């Protein structure tokens, strides 16, 4: 049976066990004088039975799925080792793929050697055995669990703490899964980066001033020496982010001040969600808005002043990105400004300060750490933003601080390095991992810094 079918079956059995357990506890309670005579509520007995019925088989399923493929593979390859012994990892994988495809009927069997066909049949047979034994085992386990859970039910059995404990462990497992996934991603990026740094020295990468990741496919090719200096990319990223922040910080902050301090309740109820819609627009929409509307407009505007603005400019990309980021800043700043205690405002107003003096001299300073935290989060968002810059910032890795020119960013280069046909172990591809790692490090540091500031802020009024 297919794994998904088994899964559904087991969950169904679990539900069945729940009703069975609950029913039995209710039946037990009746002669005793109501469910108050039971230690736990009937649903706890039901849950207890359901857990025994479905969790062990599910655990078995997970283990089985992890180990049965490698096991079958090694058995099959072992059996053909006499005829075709794989010499290295690559040919081993190739052989396995071939056998597996033959077994699944993806490759036509005609014309293949008898050894391979035999191996494929062998594999197929092993897989069938594995599947059926898994099904049988799971159903047995499930049935045994159901029986055990059902037999445990009695008026004095403490089902509630058991269920509570199991629930807690399930939650823990989910949390661990999320953390391990993150760690896994970081580690894989890290390993690939280390591989990259074997061919390109880390110093050249971090401090190099030139970025042209063209590596030779053949030894004698012209222009084959790729250079992987990441500085122009990070400068481009910084430039675009800086433009974005120049747009987003003042506008976001001032709209937050207006919403928190001046707007009437009815304006607030409509204006705040309207601002937050900006955050809900897909970035690709911002991207073509930047590329097709803003960039040509800026170019024409520049031309009328006698400035040459490139048709893909840091200004266009950064400006549009800034608009996208406004709601981040405004909604975070709005929260911290409204969190400033009313007594602070009263104190200032009672001194004869005007409303705007109160905002400038008391409220903003009091809320500043929180605002800075919000700005930090927005910056890491800007640095990681991809779609807008891919569409509007350009591809040329130029080392410039002029926002009217076209620049490229780290994220754009990662995209271009990895799209299209690539060799997966060339420095060109691996460079993407190194860039990713650096980007990740930078945003992580920014986030830690931001969290630190936000935390410090929290302590202030408690």
């Amino acid at each position, binding site marked *: 049976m297919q794994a998904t079918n088994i899964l559904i079956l087991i969950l169904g059995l679990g539900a069945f066990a729940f009703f069975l357990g609950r029913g039995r506890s209710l039946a037990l309670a009746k002669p005793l004088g109501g469910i108050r005579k039971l230690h736990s509520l009937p649903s706890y007995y039901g849950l207890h039975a359901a857990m025994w019925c479905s969790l062990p088989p599910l655990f078995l399923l997970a283990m089985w799925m992890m180990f049965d493929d490698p096991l079958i593979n090694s058995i099959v390859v072992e059996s053909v080792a006499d005829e075709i012994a794989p010499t290295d990892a690559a040919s081993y994988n190739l052989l396995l793929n071939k056998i597996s495809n033959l077994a699944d009927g993806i490759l036509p069997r005609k014309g293949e050697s008898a050894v391979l066909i035999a191996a494929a049949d062998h594999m197929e047979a092993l897989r069938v055995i594995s599947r059926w034994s898994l099904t049988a085992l799971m159903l047995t386990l499930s049935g045994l669990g159901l029986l055990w859970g059902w037999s445990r039910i009695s008026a004095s059995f403490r089902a509630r703490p058991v269920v509570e404990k199991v629930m807690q462990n399930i939650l823990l497992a989910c949390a661990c899964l999320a953390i391990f996934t993150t760690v896994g991603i970081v580690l894989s990026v890290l390993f690939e980066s280390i591989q990259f740094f074997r061919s390109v020295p880390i110093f050249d990468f971090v401090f190099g001033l030139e970025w042209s990741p063209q590596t030779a496919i053949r030894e004698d090719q012209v222009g084959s020496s790729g250079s992987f200096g990441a500085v122009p990319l990070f400068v481009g990223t910084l430039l675009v982010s800086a433009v974005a922040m120049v747009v987003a910080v003042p506008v976001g902050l001032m709209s937050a001040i207006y919403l928190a301090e001046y707007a009437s309740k009815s304006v607030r109820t409509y204006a705040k969600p309207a601002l937050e819609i900006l955050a809900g627009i897909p970035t690709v929409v911002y991207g073509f808005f930047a590329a097709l509307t803003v960039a040509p407009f800026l170019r024409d505007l520049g031309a009328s002043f006698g400035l040459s603005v490139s048709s893909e400019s840091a200004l266009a990309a950064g400006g549009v990105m800034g608009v996208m980021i406004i709601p981040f800043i405004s909604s975070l700043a709005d929260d911290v400004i409204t969190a400033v205690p009313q*007594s*602070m405002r009263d104190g200032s107003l009672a001194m*004869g*300060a*005007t409303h705007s003096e109160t905002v400038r001299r008391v409220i903003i*300073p009091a809320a500043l750490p929180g605002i800075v935290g919000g700005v930090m989060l927005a910056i890491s968002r800007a640095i990681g933003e991809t779609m807008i810059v891919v569409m509007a910032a350009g591809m040329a890795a130029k080392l410039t601080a002029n926002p009217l020119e076209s620049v490229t960013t780290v994220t754009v280069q990662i995209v271009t390095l990895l799209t299209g046909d690539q060799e997966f172990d060339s420095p060109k591809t691996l460079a993407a991992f190194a860039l990713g790692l650096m980007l990740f490090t930078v945003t992580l540091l920014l986030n830690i810094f931001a969290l630190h500031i936000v935390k410090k802020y929290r302590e*202030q009024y408690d």
Partner: protein
Amino acid sequence: MTQAATAEKKNPAKKTVAKAVNSLDVSDHQATVGKNFADNAKMTMRNVNVFYDDKQAIHDVSVDIAKNEVIAMIGPSGCGKSTFLRSLNRMNDTVDICRVEGQICMDGEDLYSPKLDVVELRARVGMVFQKPNPFPKSIYENVAYGPKIHGLADTRVDLDEIVENSLRKAGLWEEVKERLHQAGTGLSGGQQQRLCIARAIAVSPEVILMDEPCSALDPIATAKIEELIEELSQNFTIAIVTHSMQQAARVSHRTAYFHLGRLIEVNPTEQVFTMPEHQLTEAYITGRFG
């Protein structure tokens, strides 16, 4: 009058008095008894009504506050003392639903006339709140706040002098002169409250309103602030709300008793606490309710 009712239950001996208090319907009450008008009035209030939406919190209050006097406001919780106090420097403006009717004047100038500059008014009528609320700035900046926004000091030296004088008057200078540039929020509760008083007097107001300034303080800090109020009364006019009748008796020249939004009695403090004119005042100060 549920408080009276519970008092009645607890103490049957006082039953008759409580009955008498109960039978006295406050809404029948016409005028404030006692000496609510003064010859040398700093502030005058005539027929003041204050509403929160349609709920009336102050009913027809007329009273004068004389120059350089300390007037204490007492009364059961929720009777409108804070509301009354806040209408004297128009802090009620910050509450959207609040509406003030009647006439409130300072030195003959109508505080609620459209021509009046609220900012200037609040510089002339300072306020100290129940909970100390120093700004999250340094001690120096807290005191310098008012002088800076009102342009009272032309030079840094002038400003230093104002800060020092205010802190001295508030009795805080000796304690903080070594750490003027540390955060004002780092002081103890009593010190913070004196810092707020220093902040209020730094702009040399004519009147200082205090809303239960000692309710968050221990007896020692309270004693210091009471001493301070006595000193301040030489130069300032002070209106103070308090829940402590001992405090009212110690610091004030006149005492006003509020009950359910009405001003029941205003008299020299000594008289209020020895032979009150009104039954409700007597019931309150002898602890029969409130």
